[in-house]
């Protein structure tokens, strides 16, 4: 493929033709802040936070929608650029609730990151503010449009990743907002609660209801694992706080990228459900009684052994599980064949 060489902050960078200035800078390890850009979504060029100075160009172009050309000379952090970014952040903050105190995204919020990075402490413009009601009439997603910075990522994620077009921009000017058709709520729309919009939202406008109300972003440990539901095998991060699973967040999965479905993203609650079995049970006179592991295992071994002895291996059967791990299924097969001595082993694959 043809390549172009350009200079970014004094560094020579060679990239394939068609690469954006933003990607070129990132490849060279040079940081440019972005709000509306996402490598998985079509470029939009709306937030302008990624502006850079390019010699010979008037104005400051947005690097995420500017193609690198040969010989281009780019400055990503010149005073003019920094000044422009500060102004953009100030404008965003002018219409943003100062709610980091209890915001679920506090600590993992791009607006906050950039405000700190560029030292914008308070809004320079005290203007009118929105006061939209917070939408939390569904058990999965909380929408707080007051925090929305109109980056449009959720709109694109819903359309391009989820293929649903549930949310779109509506109204104009100061009243512009992202909303389902007819200004209904997500629960009143076609939304399937995949949460893929939540995963891309750079701020706290879209939040996972359970996760963000039970832990602060810095309190959780993330453990990468595979979804326990359907056969697709999506990868995600379990979010753990104080030894409890408090939520699921996207990572870059091999099968699914950042996309998940409602079960994978919001179906973790069974793990700590009070109905979980926590002790072995032995039925005595028709009633379950709690038992120690020793008792329970002893009884199982004794009864299975007795049946084998009296009626032969063929009188025993094992159901393994399409929900357990490979290792466990393997051991169950080994157990049936080597210990019980029967091929009577199956699982509910046929269903």
């Amino acid at each position, binding site marked *: 493929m043809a390549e172009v060489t350009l200079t970014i902050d004094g560094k020579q960078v060679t990239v394939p033709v068609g690469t954006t200035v933003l990607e070129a800078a990132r490849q060279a390890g040079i940081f440019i802040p972005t709000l509306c850009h996402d490598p998985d979504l079509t470029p939009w060029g709306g937030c302008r936070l990624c502006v850079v100075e390019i010699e010979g160009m008037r104005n400051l172009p947005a690097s995420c929608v500017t193609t690198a050309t040969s010989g281009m000379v780019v400055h990503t952090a010149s005073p003019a650029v920094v000044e422009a970014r500060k102004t953009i952040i100030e404008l965003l903050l002018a219409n943003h609730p100062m709610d980091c105190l209890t915001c679920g995204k506090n600590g993992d919020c791009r607006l906050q990151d950039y405000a700190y990075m560029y030292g914008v402490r308070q809004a320079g413009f005290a203007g009118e503010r929105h006061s939209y009601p917070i939408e939390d009439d569904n*058990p999965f997603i909380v929408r707080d449009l007051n925090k929305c910075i109109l980056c449009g990522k959720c709109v694109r994620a819903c359309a391009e990743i989820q*293929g649903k077009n549930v949310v779109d921009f509506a109204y104009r000017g100061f009243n512009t907002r992202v909303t389902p058709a007819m200004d209904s709520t997500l*629960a009143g729309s076609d939304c399937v*609660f*995949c949460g893929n919009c939540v995963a891309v939202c750079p701020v706290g406008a879209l939040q996972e209801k*359970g996760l963000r109300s039970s832990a602060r972003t810095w309190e959780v440990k993330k*453990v990468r*694992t595979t979804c*326990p*539901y*359907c056969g*697709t*095998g*999506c990868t995600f991060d379990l979010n753990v706080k104080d030894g409890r699973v408090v939520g699921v967040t996207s990572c870059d999965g*091999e*099968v699914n990228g950042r996309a998940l479905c409602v*079960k994978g993203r919001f*179906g*973790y*609650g*069974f*793990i700590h459900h009070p109905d*979980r*079995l926590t002790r*072995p*049970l032995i*039925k005595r006179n028709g009633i*379950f009684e709690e038992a120690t592991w020793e008792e329970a*295992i002893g009884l*199982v*071994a004794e*009864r299975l052994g007795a*049946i*084998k002895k009296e009626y032969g291996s*063929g*009188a*025993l*059967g094992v*159901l*393994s*599980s*399409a929900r*357990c*791990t*490979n*290792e*466990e299924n393997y*051991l169950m*097969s*080994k*157990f049936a064949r080597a*210990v019980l001595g029967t*091929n*009577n*082993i*199956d*699982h*509910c694959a*046929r*269903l």
Partner: protein
Amino acid sequence: MTNPIGDIGGADFILAIGTNTTESHPIIGLQVKKAVRNGATLVVVDPRRTEVAGLAHYHLRLKSGTDIALLNGLANVIISEDLVNKEFVDTRTEGFEALKETVARYTPEYVEQITGISADIIREVARGYATAKNATILYTMGLTQHVCGTHNVFAVANLAMLCGHIGKPHSGVNPLRGQNNVQGACDMGALPNVLTGYQSVTLEEVRSKFAEAWGVGELPATPGLTVGEMLEAAARGEIKGMYIMGENPVLSDPDADHVIHALEKLDFLVVQDIFLTETARLADVVLPAASFAEKDGTFTNTERRVQRVRKAIEPVGEAKPDWQIICLVATAMGYPMQYGSPAEIMEEIARLTPSYGGISYQRLENGSLVWPCPAPDHPGTPILHAGKFARGLGKFHPVEYVPPAEQPDEEYPLILNTGRRHFHYHTGTMTLRTGALEEYYGREHLEINPADARALGIADGERVRVVSRRGQVEVTARVVDTVPPGVVFTSFHFPDVAINRLTNPARDPVARIPELKVCAVRVEKIA
């Protein structure tokens, strides 16, 4: 699946049979949507107007249970209109003449009579499939005949081989498995006739290899019983003891009342699960297992991709990971079974299983591996049958259409179709206890066509009783035209709508899959 999930988005033609992909496999559904956005032709074969059917260019609302006739009809058109990929058929397959002979009878007009799909549409779809650059077939349990292995779903495979849509990207024959690790459970030999990697129990050299590795004199040589057969044998008193790990046959298997009867008849039942399921309630001993978040291991997804499961928290209460429990029981029975970690178990699996030979936890740390992966330096095999079939030449297996065992009649005039819902999973054991999913979708309903509803005097939201020859349940009716006249639909996720009390355990003679998709029922209004 012969091809990876990520492949589907690049197909030019998708034939989705009996899969409501966007609901039961949402992330695979995204690939289907992507292909359609990029201009692919989507054909959905399903009596119901599902979400994915709404995206289709052709929605073939065939009569329930007539899929084989339709597939044979497509093959008939492809052969008679000379759309066969001759080079592929000549060099890569055998048995073409036999297939040709069998499908000759399935002219579009004949198939129209069976399926209710017009002959013209059958022709158009056949042409589209045959002439597409890359065409893929997706299907689920609606069609399955066999379960594991690669030479099973003959009618589908015949079609793919006829047109050479196999062994290359964006094509293939792709069963979408319902549960996270059905593929792995099969791979690991949790089946009555094979050991790991589909090594047959009837082969002497296989048995002696395993017997030696497992340190036992000999292993049983005759294939064992399937789930359904075990339950029947239990009902007859021939099976006396069962060990059930992580399954809930009382809700998931057909003819629930019979299942309960069979399990109650056992001398001894031990159930190992994370909840006290409907099945566990019948047990003599219940062993508390750890959930997926509490243990290490691997799952193998529907595209044969082996992926890590990682322990995030300690098991709740005194629960233990299933692998540890099995070791305890085996050891207590005089067979010392001990592993330091699941990684060690995988080492043993790899030693005994050619297709998993190159898989280790160390490699999985750097990403998943798709089997066959025979050696530590083998990259894995995302696309099966490239250049060559596993058995050398691909064999055409002609199959005949057989009508469903139970046809609607005067007493039971409707067909009950069962399936899955987007917000729930399997018997609901997990998804009804999340504090979220069940809050949003907390009650099941029965979908019924307005014409049938009118005839029965049933209004939307009214309670009805659904009755089959085997049992009955009560449920709320939802009057919608997503189901065709004569068909009612519901899921098996909700214990209070235990729909498998109604379903038919009649089994396909070869694969022994119960006919869950079709059974005759009557619906009555509850006064």
